[in-house]
Every structure is written in structure tokens, then in C-alpha cells.
């Protein structure tokens, strides 16, 4: 029998993370800096609110858009933190994590052959999701020399008459790069000039360590062409709850809602209840976690520097992305040897696109004792490589 798999899917590789995960899971005693989720548990007051909701029987479907109370909280949060106003009745959609919101947005916008610009190295889902929608994902490389910032010049080199969407993720997984106001303004001008829809995944916004976060949606003329995505996973350590949200003008929200309605129905009810509590009483949680991550980031970067591994100081998210190209090993071999010899798991940079070659991703969403041990093992490993 000829392969029954849809042709546009065959060319999409499995996530490099997935391959690496299988190698790591087969080993014992691994210290993992490969985990892209907080090592905190969900703050207790949030879990407790979900337990209370469960006791009160919150086990039914919710509105397709999500519980109105939650959408109202999201609107207040958007106003407070991102300085953008959205109408909870028509401009906010609660989704199953940002992952679903991303898929909805791309499917709502892309027709076969439409192009989506995205910056690389980046989160693993962006290009595949575009391909699934029969679109063409066009990578724009960012470089270590620029602290992985996205420049207008780099975008201009890749834009075409078929470009419809610009996908942004700042702070960036895996580089920790941020988008300072000036860059943000340049990119907004670029989007307006080429009449692009901006899809901005700001899941790590609350983990910005200095200078404050600027959302591109808040810039003049941008709200009407922006789909803003965010969720609760990183800020409130709620990855397993699977709750995210999209904010966009009514026409776009309605289009995304149609797909969501027919494929998902609604985001999990209990998760939505937990999310309400997070937004109402969780401001201090985010602050507390940010302070902890900052110390871990400082520790990892100082340790890498001591080892003679150059690493730009990540300004957001919880990933360090050091350059290891000068050891004469590919990213994958470096990561495999490190795992093999010292039982420390870091993700090869190439899992985040070909421009990640020469780098590894070290997540500092691990506890401090593990980070210390991982760094001392890595120092030993690097010492041997140098001999």
C-alpha cells in the first residue's frame, strides 16, 4: 500500500527534542537542564481554588470562548501588564495552552502558499504548525553577535509579496532574547508597511529581568493587526493545566473561535477556574519566581564564563544559550557526549532550527542544587575536551 499519510505532513521532521527525550529517558541519574517548564509546582492557592471549584461541581462545559469571568480577568490583566484594552465579550478566547492558540491563529489566517516569517532559533512548533496549514514558514536567523535580537534589516531580506504573517516570540525560547521598545517600534513599522498580521507569543513576558516588557500589541496602529498569545504555564507554573488565551480584534477572534468550537469545544473547566485565581491573587507568585530564576541565571552564566564558554546574558525566559562551537563538536555531539560522560542533559541548539548549530540550551528552570551539580559536571567535561 502506498503511504496513506498526507503528503504535506511527511516532510515535517519529528521534534529534535523528542529524539533527545528518548535518549535521556533511557538513562538513570540524569541531571536535566533540558526541561522547558518551571520546576516550581503551581502555587498552592491556585491549586486549592481548583479543588474548591471541583467540590462545587465545576465539571461541565464552559462557553466556547471560555468562562466570562476569566475573560474579564484576562482583559484586566492585559490592561494592567501589557497596556492594551480588549473586550472580554468579543476579543478574548481561552484555549488549551498557547499551543492551541497558535494553531488556531495560523489556521484562521493561512491559505495554501501564504508565507509566515518567524525568527530562528525558536520554539519547535512554529514551522510545523504553518506547514500543517499548507503555508510556507520562512525562517529569519538571529545571531549571537546581536544578542539574538530581531532586526528590521533581517526581516526585509526575507519578506515577499506572499508574506501574510509575522510570528514573534519575545522573550525567546531558547535564546532568552527580548524585544526592547526601539526594536519593537521598528518591527511594528515593518509590519504596517508590508500589511502583515503579527502573531505574538508572549508566554515568557513576565520573566523579563530588566527594563520591563513591551508588547508589540500596545504600539499605535498595531492592535488591529495583532493576535496576542499568552498563557498560565510559565508565569504561574501551570504547564499541566493547559490553559492559554488569544486576544485579537473581533473578526480574528471569531474566526479562531470557529475552529476552536468545532475541534476542542472549550478549554478544561477546572483549569479555567484555577486561571481565574492566578489572575486575581497571583501577582506575588510571578514576582517570587522571577527573583529565583534571576539568581539561577546569574549562577549559570557566571559558571559558564568560568569554564570559558561564551554566553550572552539572557534578558528573559529561563534559558541560557551558550556557544559551544569552538570545541569542534556539533551541537548534537556535544550534548550527546555531555550526557554520556557526565549524565547532564542539555538540548542541542539544532532542535530549535538550523541556526541553533553551535549552541546548546541550558534551562535554568531547575532547582539550585541541580544547577550547581550540573555546572560542576559540565566544567569537568569541558576540561577533558580541552586536553
Amino acid at each position, binding site marked *: 500500500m502506498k503511504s496513506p499519510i498526507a503528503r504535506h505532513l511527511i516532510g515535517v521532521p519529528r*521534534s529534535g*527534542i523528542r529524539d533527545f*527525550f528518548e535518549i535521556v529517558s533511557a538513562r538513570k541519574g*540524569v541531571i*536535566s537542564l533540558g526541561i522547558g517548564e518551571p*520546576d516550581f509546582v503551581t502555587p498552592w492557592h491556585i491549586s486549592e481554588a481548583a479543588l474548591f471549584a471541583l467540590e462545587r461541581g465545576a465539571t461541565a462545559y464552559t462557553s466556547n470562548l471560555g468562562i466570562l469571568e476569566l475573560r474579564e480577568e484576562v482583559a484586566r490583566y492585559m490592561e494592567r501588564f501589557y497596556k492594551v484594552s480588549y473586550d472580554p465579550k468579543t476579543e478574548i478566547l481561552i484555549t488549551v495552552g498557547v499551543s492551541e492558540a497558535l494553531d488556531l491563529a495560523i489556521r484562521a489566517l493561512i491559505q495554501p502558499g501564504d508565507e509566515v516569517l518567524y525568527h530562528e532559533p525558536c520554539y*519547535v512548533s512554529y514551522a510545523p504548525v504553518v506547514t500543517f496549514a499548507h503555508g510556507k514558514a520562512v525562517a529569519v536567523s538571529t545571531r549571537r553577535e546581536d544578542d539574538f535580537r530581531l532586526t528590521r534589516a533581517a526581516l526585509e531580506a526575507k519578506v515577499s509579496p506572499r508574506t501574510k504573517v509575522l510570528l514573534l516570540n519575545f522573550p525567546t525560547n531558547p535564546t532568552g532574547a527580548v524585544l526592547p521598545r526601539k526594536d519593537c517600534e521598528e518591527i511594528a513599522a515593518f509590519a504596517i508597511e508590508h500589511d502583515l498580521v503579527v502573531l505574538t507569543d508572549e508566554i515568557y513576558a513576565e520573566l523579563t529581568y530588566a527594563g520591563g516588557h513591551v508588547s508589540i500589541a500596545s504600539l499605535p496602529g498595531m492592535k488591529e493587526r495583532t493576535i496576542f498569545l499568552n498563557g498560565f504555564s510559565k508565569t504561574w507554573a501551570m504547564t499541566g493545566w493547559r490553559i492559554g488565551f488569544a486576544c485579537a480584534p473581533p473578526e480574528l477572534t471569531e474566526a479562531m473561535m470557529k475552529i476552536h468550537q468545532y475541534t476542542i469545544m472549550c478549554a478544561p473547566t477546572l483549569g479555567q477556574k484555577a486561571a481565574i485565581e492566578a489572575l486575581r491573587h497571583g501577582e506575588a507568585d510571578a514576582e517570587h519566581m522571577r527573583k529565583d530564576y534571576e539568581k539561577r541565571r546569574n*549562577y549559570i552564566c557566571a559558571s559558564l564564563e568560568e569554564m570559558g564558554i561564551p554566553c550572552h546574558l539572557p534578558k528573559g525566559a529561563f534559558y541560557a544559550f551558550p556557544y559551544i562551537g569552538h570545541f569542534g563538536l556539533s551541537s548534537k555531539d556535544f550534548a550527546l557526549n555531555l550526557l554520556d560522560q557526565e549524565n547532564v542533559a542539555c*538540548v542541542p541548539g539544532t532542535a530549535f532550527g538550523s541556526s541553533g548549530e553551535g549552541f546548546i540550551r541550558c534551562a535554568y528552570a531547575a532547582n539550585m542544587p541541580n544547577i550547581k551539580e550540573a555546572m560542576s559536571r559540565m566544567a569537568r567535561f569541558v576540561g577533558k575536551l580541552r586536553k
Partner: protein
Amino acid sequence: MLQIRVMDELLRLLKENALESPRNLAKMLNQSEDAVKARIADYERTGVIRGYQAVVNEDKLDIDRVSAVIEVKITPEREGGYDELANRIGRFPEVDSIYLMSGGFDLLIFVKGRNLKEVAFFVSDKLATIEGVVSTVTHFMLKTYKDSGVLMEAEKERERLGVTP
């Protein structure tokens, strides 16, 4: 005059783990090791840091030990108010902690002894007989669940994938 200072990140880290080396503290705080050492010395000198202790789960040890909390009503003294009497009580080695409280009594005292008899003796013969102590109510502790911000039961290893995007 006592200088009022804020709880900074260095103090927060030491409160979490007083055994953390100055070198590691310096790395976490993005400061020099000497600067961190100097600040710790300053905190010790000025009495901001009053000591370093391990948080021990005594329920895990095979020792004879009982703990009690005592509510004490006292008559404040003409000169010295509550402080003088509280300090006097605080000098007894049996007393672990002592607080001045609002509400139905004045001092809350945490005491430890080898057995019930020893604590009873402390209350009846030492504490209650101090001039100014009006009454005492003693509660014996049965089990410790959390102490100094630390849960006594080690939490189970949480399920988490080894590598995620």
C-alpha cells in the same frame, strides 16, 4: 539607634540555606565574593543575623523530648514594662522562643524538656513563681508538620519529563 534595613536578596538566600558558600552567593547575586563576605560580616556585627541553625525534624530522632506552648499573663513592671520580665523568662535554657502577644494573654512561650515532668516542673516551680506572672496555660505539642518554613515530611519526587520543549 538601630538602623532599619530591608530584607535583601542576600538575606533571603541565607534564610533558605545558611550553608551556601560566599562564592556561590556571589555568583547568584552577580557580585564579587569579597563584597558578599563583607556584607555578611556587617550583618553579623550589627546583629541583623543573630545565628545559624539547622532545621531538625526531631520526630525522626529517638530522643526523649517534649515541647509545649505556654500562654502567660503577666503584670507589667513599673520600669521596664513587659521587656524586663520577658527577658528574665527568656534566660531559662528550657525556653526556645518567647513573644509578646495581643489578645487574651501577654507572652507566648515555647519550651522544651526531656519529659512531661520536666516541663511541668519548669512551669510550676520556675515560671509561675516569678513575681509578676499572673497565670499560665500550658499546651503540649503532639507532632510537628512544618517548622521555620520547612515541611517536615519530604515531598515525593514530582513527575516531570526529562526533556521538554
